[in-house]
C-alpha cells in the first residue's frame, strides 16, 4: 500500500495526513498499468486508453491530491470509471450523428444489437480444437482479454473492480453508482460469461 508514507508524528500540527508528491507518484506507478488495461478493455483503442489514464491522473492530482493516501485508490477508481463513461457518452453522441449519415451510403451490417449477443463464439474459430495446453501463455492472455472486451460494460466494470482492483462490494457499488446487489449480479454474470467464452475457446484455467 502506498499509504505507508510518513508517520503521523513527523507531520506538522495539522492532523490530516495529505498525500505527498512522492506518495502520489508511487501510487500512480502502482496503478497506472492496470488502469491502462481497464481503459483498453473498455474502449478498445490504446491511444484513447492512454488519454483516459492521463486524464484520470491529472484530475486526481489537481483536485484530490489533498486527500489522505489511503483514500487515493478509491478516488482514482471513481475518476477513472467516470472518465471512461464520459468517453462512452461522447462516442454515443458521435454515433447519433454519424449512423444516420453512414446509413445513407449503404447497408450497415452490424446494427444495434443486444450486447449479450456479442458473447457468441463462432464455431469455426481457430481455437476450437483442443488441447489448450499447447497455447502459449500470451495466447491465453489474449483470449482472456478479448473475452473481457466482449463483456457488457457494466459486467466488465464490476468484475474488474471487485477482483482485479480488489475493492469490496460496497466500494464497487459506490463507484458504479448502483446497489450492492447489482454489483454482485454483474460479477456473477461476468464470471459465468467469461467461463462460457473461454470454455468454447477450449481454454482450461
Amino acid at each position: 500500500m502506498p499509504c505507508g508514507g510518513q508517520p503521523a508524528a513527523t507531520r506538522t500540527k495539522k492532523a490530516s495526513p495529505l498525500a505527498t508528491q512522492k506518495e502520489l507518484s508511487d501510487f500512480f506507478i502502482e496503478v497506472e498499468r492496470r488502469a491502462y488495461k481497464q481503459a483498453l478493455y473498455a474502449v478498445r483503442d490504446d491511444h484513447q486508453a492512454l488519454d483516459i489514464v492521463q486524464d484520470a491522473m491529472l484530475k486526481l492530482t489537481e483536485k484530490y491530491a489533498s486527500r489522505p493516501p489511503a483514500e487515493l485508490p478509491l478516488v482514482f477508481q471513481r475518476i477513472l470509471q467516470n472518465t471512461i463513461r464520459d468517453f462512452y457518452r461522447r462516442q454515443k453522441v458521435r454515433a447519433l450523428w454519424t449512423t444516420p449519415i453512414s446509413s445513407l451510403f449503404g447497408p450497415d451490417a452490424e446494427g444495434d444489437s443486444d450486447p449479450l449477443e456479442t458473447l457468441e463464439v463462432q464455431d469455426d474459430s481457430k481455437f476450437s480444437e483442443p488441447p489448450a495446453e499447447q497455447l502459449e501463455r500470451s495466447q491465453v492472455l489474449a483470449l482472456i482479454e478479448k473475452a473481457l472486451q466482449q463483456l457488457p460494460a457494466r459486467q466488465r466494470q464490476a468484475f474488474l473492480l471487485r477482483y482485479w482492483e480488489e475493492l469490496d462490494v460496497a466500494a464497487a457499488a459506490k463507484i458504479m453508482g448502483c446497489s450492492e446487489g447489482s454489483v454482485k449480479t454483474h460479477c456473477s454474470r461476468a464470471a459465468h460469461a467469461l467461463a462460457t467464452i473461454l470454455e468454447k475457446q477450449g481454454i482450461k484455467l
Partner: protein
Amino acid sequence: MNLPEHELARKLVQHLDQGVDRLGPGVRERLVTARNAALSKYREQPAPVLGLAWAGQAAARITEPGFYDARNLIAVAALVLALVGVGYWQISAPGNDVADIDTNLLTDELPVSAYLDKGFDSWLKRSPR
C-alpha cells in the same frame, strides 16, 4: 468448467497481472509521460477559498505571541483614533447646505410649486419695498 466464481476470478486475474507486466515499451513510456505531466500539477496544498484563507491568516496573526509588541499596538491605536476621528468629523461636519435648503423648502408652508410661478418671483422682488 464449473469453477466457483472466486476461484475463476482469481485465476483470470493472475493472467491479467502477467499481461500488465508485459506491457510494451511504447505504452510504458507514454504512461511515464502521463504520470509526470500529472505530477507537475501537484501543489502542496490546493488553493482554498480566498476569503477563508485570509480569515485563517488573520486569526493566526492575532493569536501569535509576537503580535502585541509596541509597534503593532501603536499602529492599531493610530488606526482606531483615525477611525474615531473620521466618525466624529462625519457627525459634526457643517451640514450639507443643499440638504438643509431642500428640507426647508419642503417643510415650509409655502407650496413648492409657488417657486415655479413667475408672478410669485416678481412679487418677491417687489415685496421688500
